[in-house]
């Protein structure tokens, strides 16, 4: 009676019902496991196991799936065929897309613009969905990630997701993905890690316990235990946000840089999809960019130092504000900027003058770690604030080299530093010209008024400056402690996330956020703030752009106002040297408008290198124009990057899902009416909102145990709506009210409640049964019409072909296959046809039963024809891909051989050494080639045993 499987590969489709251990389950996916086994991921539907998720291994459990030709055909006596329509709609919901169109991402709680769907479409076109999303600052990369993850989830390729992000944005990322896409990521920040440790046994791998996790890259790279856990895991999708941190950079020899890069290399082969995001994806060197592309596809580039656009173009997408401005409309406003130049006070000039002539004898002769002369470092600190300056001088005085030496030179330097301390201390706030102007500026914004709702974010490089400002502003503006917040890198992840949350909340008291550059990457500060002040200037275009991007970004409702505070010394020579800073501001503004990527202007692509470069200008060795040219410093690599993306990325194709109900709300309403007994009053429908609230029953609560704990509070209702605007408003309001999680959640196929509901509907329908529906208007002359589903999987058990179609029976024989749309049109089932309940006779059912074998045969043939058509359509591009791979293998080895021949010094042992190295490299390249080839092969070759299902039978009216 059943098709049982043990040790052979199961022929099962998502949504198929199986019997295992005498209980009934619905298949969610089938995946290869170790030792050639297969793991069937399933959710329980029968009484004892309802709602339980489990995994069966085909060599251990007897997994029984009923044969399609033995499907029990049953009459549906519910009004308007509610039960049947719910069952069929639920099957359609469980039917993963197998094409490259966007099926759900564009229906998330967002207002998508075409450019935001393109990265997902581009990734889905690849054999493996792997992409570097490298759009400029503030274009909404998180939304682009959400769209792609949604599409992967819809395809059954997003069950296990790992997101790595900076600690400051873990919560922000988690909330965006939940509020807009209902993707539940468990946040493993310091509190989350403790929570996990208390919840699961100490030796249990937390990444097995939770399927979707967001964690800071620094937590992972540091924690040996977590690294070991990672080594054991496989993922469907890994997201590395701000991936420049894992790239091979010129300074990647630092322990931190290489630890992060090692972590990325550990994860890349352990995931199917890989999504990298960065606004600064390279440091200007071809090899740095190549290191990211290699994570995505190890066989893309043969020579990391010398490659063509063709080799990388498929793997990244990079646009700037200027490129998408026409699509965004009011989503972006032109920035307004102002440079506030203050003439130095006599006290300040005294210090400037002394500093311009001072000469150290033991210190500052060589450039320190910052690449600047000590005198320049002092000047930079002073240009931030006297407090920063004093802090730098005091620290230097404490140093052994200065303090403990008895030499005359050391004594001289101590004297100079002491004099500088004295000069610095004389600059009281009243004599701090920039601060006074800043104060006036803040007053001009109304920040001294008690009931103001104005907000401003103030950036400074120096924590000492931030602390000075925090203390003084409270006094000078009459602000309370909770109206000023200070954000810097040494705060723990909880405090950083809390500050970001508070600043994004309308109800929060915070008016001024004083931030170091730890806040300049990734975080959203634009919700209730459109003003940003650079209290000091970072000597880097990249940092400036990143700072500005915190408020000048997608979704900013007002024109962003950017203010730069500069001090102009009386000393003309020094003032001349500092003119480079003014030019830096002008160039950043021009570059972001015209060039898009400001980093090309200097072609250094590294904050620290840019700072050193600007420092050289300040030190007077170059003119401002020499330091900051009008035109970008173009090179071959720049041409490659820009040139390769010149052809416009095609717009994504969006597909509407096949559904039998008008919308998700109608589906839910009917499903709850059908499923819930009168005493299960867990759902309340709203009168004035397109939504409902639900008190989760036990089996749903069970599911929430594996989701982020923030999503469900015991005893509270979950509110769900299909109104996207309401979800977005609710998301905004949650931020306004600082309650973290929105009141209204999007009810769509991806929400855990919708998934639970669909499983319940499928579970309620009889075991291995299909409904018979009588269609009063007839069936275009056919005796009856069978609705079937066919599925063909690849060698990795991923569905690659799913078809819904009708098999009409005329004169007792199967006729030509018709499409699902034709079935829907002929039967009118999406319009809730009336059920005549005319009492179909047993004789009719027996006749229908007799057709089943022929129908299954016809369905099988149809699916094999589809399989052949697919093979024909992809053969040529596929072969091209494999030929490219073969070319890569040859070119990689040739490039290695050339490089090694040049590198190795001439000696008697050169040839032997060369051969040894080549042999080793050849093995490495062959291993990569083989793994990649097998991956392609397994992903594209399909089973010739399609999974088939008879889903319903339609008979013309009057057959009763």
């Amino acid at each position, binding site marked *: 009676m059943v098709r049982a499987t043990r040790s052979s590969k199961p022929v099962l489709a998502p949504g198929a019902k199986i019997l295992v251990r005498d209980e009934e389950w619905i298949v969610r996916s089938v995946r290869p496991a170790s030792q050639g086994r297969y793991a069937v991921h399933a959710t329980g539907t029968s009484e004892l196991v309802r709602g339980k998720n489990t995994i069966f291994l085909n060599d251990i459990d007897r997994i029984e799936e009923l044969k399609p030709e033995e499907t029990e055909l049953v009459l549906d006596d519910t009004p308007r065929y509610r039960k049947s329509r719910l069952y069929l709609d639920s099957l359609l919901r469980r039917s993963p897309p197998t094409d490259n169109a966007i099926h759900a991402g564009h229906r998330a709680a967002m207002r998508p613009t075409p450019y935001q769907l393109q990265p997902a479409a581009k990734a889905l076109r690849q054999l493996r969905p792997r992409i570097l999303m490298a759009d400029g600052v503030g274009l909404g990369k998180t939304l682009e990630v959400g769209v792609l993850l949604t599409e992967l989830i819809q395809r059954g390729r997003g069950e296990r997701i790992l997101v790595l992000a900076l600690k400051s944005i873990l919560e922000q990322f988690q909330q965006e993905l939940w509020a807009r896409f209902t993707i539940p990521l468990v946040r493993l920040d310091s509190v989350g890690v403790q929570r996990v440790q208390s919840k699961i046994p100490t030796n249990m791998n937390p990444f097995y316990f939770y399927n979707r996790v967001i964690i800071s890259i620094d937590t992972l790279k540091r924690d040996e235990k977590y690294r070991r856990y990672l080594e054991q895991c496989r993922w469907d999708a890994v997201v590395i946000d701000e991936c420049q941190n894992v790239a091979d950079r010129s300074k990647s020899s630092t322990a931190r840089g290489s630890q992060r890069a090692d972590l990325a290399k550990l994860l890349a082969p352990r995931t199917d999809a890989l999504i990298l995001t960065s606004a600064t994806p390279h440091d200007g060197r071809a090899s740095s960019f190549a290191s990211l592309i290699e994570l995505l596809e190890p066989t893309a580039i043969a020579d990391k130092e010398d490659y063509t656009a063709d080799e990388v173009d498929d793997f990244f997408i990079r646009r700037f504000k200027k490129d998408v401005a026409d699509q965004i409309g009011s989503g972006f406003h032109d920035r307004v900027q102002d440079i506030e130049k203050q003439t130095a006070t006599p006290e300040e000039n005294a210090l400037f003058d002394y500093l311009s002539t001072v000469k150290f004898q033991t210190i500052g002769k060589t450039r320190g770690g910052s690449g600047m002369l000590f005198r320049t470092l002092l000047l930079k600190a002073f240009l931030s604030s006297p407090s920063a300056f004093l802090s730098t001088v005091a620290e230097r005085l404490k140093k052994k080299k200065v303090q403990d030496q008895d030499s005359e030179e050391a004594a001289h330097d101590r004297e100079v530093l002491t004099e500088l301390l004295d000069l610095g201390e004389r600059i009281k706030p009243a004599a701090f010209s920039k601060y006074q102007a800043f104060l006036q500026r803040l007053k001009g914004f109304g920040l001294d008024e008690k009931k103001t709702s104005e907000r401003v974010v103030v950036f400074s490089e120096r924590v000492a400056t931030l602390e000075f400002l925090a203390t003084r502003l409270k006094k000078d503006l009459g602000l309370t402690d909770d109206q000023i917040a200070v954000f810097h890198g040494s705060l723990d992840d909880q405090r950083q996330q809390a500050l970001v949350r508070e600043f994004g909340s309308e109800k929060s008291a915070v008016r001024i956020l004083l931030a170091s550059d730890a806040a300049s990457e990734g975080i959203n500060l634009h919700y209730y703030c459109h003003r940003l002040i650079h209290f000091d200037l970072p000597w880097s275009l990249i940092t400036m752009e990143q700072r500005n991007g915190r408020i000048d970004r997608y979704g900013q409702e007002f024109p962003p106002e950017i203010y730069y505070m500069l001090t102009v010394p009386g000393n003309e020579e020094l003032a001349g040297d500092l003119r480079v800073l003014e030019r830096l501001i002008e160039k950043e503004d021009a570059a972001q408008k015209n060039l898009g990527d400001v980093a090309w202007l200097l072609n250094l692509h590294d904050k620290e290198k840019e700072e050193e470069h600007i420092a050289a200008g300040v030190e007077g060795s170059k003119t401002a124009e020499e330091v900051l040219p009008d035109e970008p410093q173009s090179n071959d690599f720049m041409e490659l990057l820009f040139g390769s993306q010149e052809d416009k990325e095609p717009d994504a194709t969006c597909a509407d899902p096949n559904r039998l109900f008008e919308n998700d709300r109608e589906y839910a309403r009917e499903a709850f009416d059908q499923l819930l007994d009168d005493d299960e009053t867990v759902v309340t429908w709203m009168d004035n909102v397109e939504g409902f609230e639900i008190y989760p029953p036990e089996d749903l609560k069970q599911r929430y145990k594996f989701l982020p704990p923030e999503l469900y509070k015991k005893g509270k209702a979950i509110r769900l709506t299909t109104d996207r605007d309401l979800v977005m408003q609710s998301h905004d309001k949650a931020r306004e009210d600082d309650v973290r999680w929105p009141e209204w959640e999007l009810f769509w196929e991806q929400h855990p409640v919708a998934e639970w509901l669909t499983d319940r509907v499928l579970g309620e329908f009889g075991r291995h049964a299909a409904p018979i529906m009588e269609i009063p208007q007839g069936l275009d002359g056919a005796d009856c019409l069978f609705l079937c589903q066919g599925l063909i999987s690849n060698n990795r058990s991923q569905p690659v072909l799913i078809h819904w179609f009708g098999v009409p029976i005329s004169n007792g024989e199967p006729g030509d296959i018709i499409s699902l749309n034709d079935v829907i049109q002929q039967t009118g089932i999406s319009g809730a046809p009336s059920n005549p309940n005319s009492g179909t006779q047993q004789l009719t059912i027996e006749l229908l039963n007799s057709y089943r074998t022929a129908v299954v045969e016809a369905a099988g043939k149809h699916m094999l024809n589809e399989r052949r058509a697919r093979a024909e359509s992809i053969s040529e591009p*596929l072969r091209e891909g*494999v030929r490219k791979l073969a070319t890569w293998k040859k070119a990689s080895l040739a490039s290695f051989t050339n490089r090694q021949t040049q590198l190795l010094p001439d000696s008697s042992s050169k040839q032997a050494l060369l051969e040894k190295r080549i042999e080793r490299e050849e093995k490495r390249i062959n291993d990569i080639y083989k793994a990649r080839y097998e991956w392609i092969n397994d992903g594209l070759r399909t089973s010739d045993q399609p999974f088939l299902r008879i889903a319903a039978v339609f008979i013309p009216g009057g057959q009763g």
Partner: protein
Amino acid sequence: MVLADELEEYTGQLDHQAVQSEFFDLETAKRTARLCRDLLAALPSEPDEHQHRLTQLAIAYFVLEEDAEDDNDSLIGFDDDLQVAVAVAEALGLKDLVD
């Protein structure tokens, strides 16, 4: 079996193999078979050992299923067969046989 017969027998199975194997590269296989036939036809009436051996090599390689790229299992199973046949044609100065 003589080489020409082996070639015809192997070529005769190609259509059947294409049905059996999902990504069988029938087009390249037939192109290689054509070139092999042309090489055979180009053999001079006076025996030329060099030409004979090279032609033999091209055909032997073609009819060998498990070569560098397995004819049935590899996605590019006949790329190597065609390359060998083309190389032979070029070596024999019969470039014009290559389409």
